[in-house]
């Protein structure tokens, strides 16, 4: 009886080991950044191996006499980057939501979207690439090897537009021991409407004005 039990345990162990090895070989883990073949392996997992995205997680706030800007970022590991063309693979993303209030009037609020589970491109704010100081928009005050994160940014009223785009580039700094987030927000493509061939809309813009912002970490 004891011998039979031992045999079963042995069989289960061997099969489990084979399963594990099989699973590992089907989903190679590759670095998300500094990878010249990013996006070229079907089914791969492009992982933020340096935990570069982790530094941005949390809640950040900018406020002055009339405006209030709040950003919330969450790291979402291993989201499935699935589209109808090209390779499909898994990838770590930083996703986010924003709230913008002017003179007590809320002009945009996408904060609750960070609590949902979506296709990465369905979030209002999501990470694009890690960039150097000399990549547009240039960062004059950055140190030589300092890296920033470019993100795709949208608001409730702009998400549907097919063309409106802006560079939304963030980097974390410490000033006098206070953790802060610096943002460069620059328009790069005008609006065109909700469809590529429908009514042309060229005057749509974000409620958040273009420019540079410095936010303070809340938590």
């Amino acid at each position, binding site marked *: 009886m004891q011998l*039979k*039990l031992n045999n*079963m345990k042995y*069989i*289960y162990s061997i*099969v*489990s080991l*084979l*399963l594990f090895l*099989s*699973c590992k070989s*089907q989903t190679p883990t590759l670095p998300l950044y500094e990878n*010249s073949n*990013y*996006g*070229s392996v*079907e*089914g791969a997992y492009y992982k933020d191996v340096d935990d570069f995205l982790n530094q941005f997680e949390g809640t950040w706030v900018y406020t002055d006499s009339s405006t209030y800007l709040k950003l919330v970022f969450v790291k979402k590991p291993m989201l499935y*980057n*699935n*589209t*109808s*063309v*090209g*390779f*499909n693979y898994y990838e770590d993303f930083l996703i986010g939501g924003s709230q913008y209030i002017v003179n007590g009037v809320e002009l945009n609020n996408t904060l609750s979207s960070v609590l949902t589970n979506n*296709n990465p*491109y*369905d979030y209002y704010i999501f990470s*694009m*690439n*890690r*960039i*150097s100081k*000399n*990549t*547009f*928009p*240039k960062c004059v005050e950055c140190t030589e090897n300092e890296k920033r994160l*470019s993100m*795709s940014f949208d608001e409730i009223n702009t*998400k*549907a537009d*097919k*063309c409106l*785009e802006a560079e939304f580039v963030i980097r974390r700094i410490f000033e006098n021991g206070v953790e802060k987030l610096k943002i460069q927000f*620059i*328009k*790069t*493509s*005008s609006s*065109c409407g*909700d*469809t*590529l*061939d429908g009514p*042309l809309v*060229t005057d749509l*813009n974000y409620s958040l004005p*273009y420019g540079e912002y410095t936010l303070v970490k809340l938590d």
Partner: protein
Amino acid sequence: MKGKLRLLIGLSILACIFKTSISCEAEKEYSNTVNTGYRLRKINFDQLKSRKEVFSMFEKASRVRQNSQMERIVYNEEYDLYFDVDNILFIEKEGYESYTIPLLKEPNDSLVKNLVLYHKLNEPIKAKLMGYKLTDEDIERIRSGEVIDVSNRTYSSVIDPSYTVNGSVSWYDDSGCLVTATTTFVPGTPCIEDGHTFGEPCSVTGSGRATPDRLVIQYTYGFCLDGSVNGGTIGNPTYPTDPGGGGPGDGTSGQTPIENPPLNDEEEDEVVTTPVIPELDAQTTPCVELNKFSSNSGNKNKLNVLKTKTNLTKEYGYTILKNNENNSYQTPEEIQQDPTNPNHLVQIYGDNIVGLMHTHPDPVETGVVPMFSIADLRALVIIALRHNNNGQPKNFSEYTVTMTAQNSNGDKYTYALKIKNFLALMQVFSSESNYKKMKKSLENKYNETTALGAMDDLSLDFLNVLKKNNLQNAVSLYQAEQDFSSWKEIKINPENEFNLIKTPCN
């Protein structure tokens, strides 16, 4: 007993998990197979080539001679035919396969012709030339995804590569009597987003359109009851005369019949296909249109003006305009800077706008990459979509986006993007996810090369991203001579993917 049962259950569970874990990607279905049994898929020339026996039959049937300037257009010198090998429709059902390859339509040819390679599994590949008598309106309706009834308008001819007489192909059908032609409606691909109902616009971001519905036609040929081998059309048998011109008529006049025509020694010969419209007009190509564009003095003048602005920190640009009545170029109009960002141009579309000429600012000062962005490619798509052509069919090869920039040494270059396959472009760009993914991928590559990198390296980055997204035959990239007297098409070298080849446009 209990122990054996536990072992069996345990191994079964593990086997299920194992099977799930080794399953890699979901196959990309392009058609709804429910209730039809047909699987339809658009494939490209490389995929056809990977089916060696099918490609061998294609080579024999077409006597391939590569055209050095337009690789995707396969030219058959003997039959004076062009095959649009970028729009091959693959149909399969229950052990049967067919590949339908459209021929480019000559303006004076009344028929839309498709080469169909077909077989049952483990049987030899056969070839048949199908001809459909379609009006220009029919063609546009099919291109836009409508299903057209081609009853009484279909012609066919066997292509037996072992069999030619006097170097010509006979156009009367010698493949046996048409016994039946049954049609099956196969709906196109549903929207990729969950919960979408076919036929409705995608409600989730992306507005991806479904791929077209198809009327799949199964032609069954057999011996005629009297032993003859006439027939071949659905309805009254009539025969087209000359492959290159003229409409249906007496198939024997001016033609040399095939001697000892091959008998169909099978009880039934089944051809399953549906009309496939070629994407390119045989008489105009992106190269031809690009040369026309830059040889126009007004356009050339503005291209030269833009060369003087590449060292600035703003974008500059002009719209390319055509008179819709006589299709001639008009004086380009300057595009204004965006008041919300003076470094960037307002985008304008519609009316008689057929293109855009613009600069990218100084890469050293601004960090902007001196090569096309995905947004530039999207602009080309929107220009084509919104051009008001007064309801006339669009010649997609006439739309252009140019980009003039300088490298880190101050050397100036002008590039152009042209459309080769608009449907393929739309299928990608109608999805927001596709666009963002391509944008991310291209910016990732540009980050590696940097804005100060060599222009050829940046061109290679751009072309690699197109290739990764199956757009390498939908869009073409060109580089101008410094005096704009001619252009060269830039492609990834098929022998070495890290190099480019540049082929002059004639």
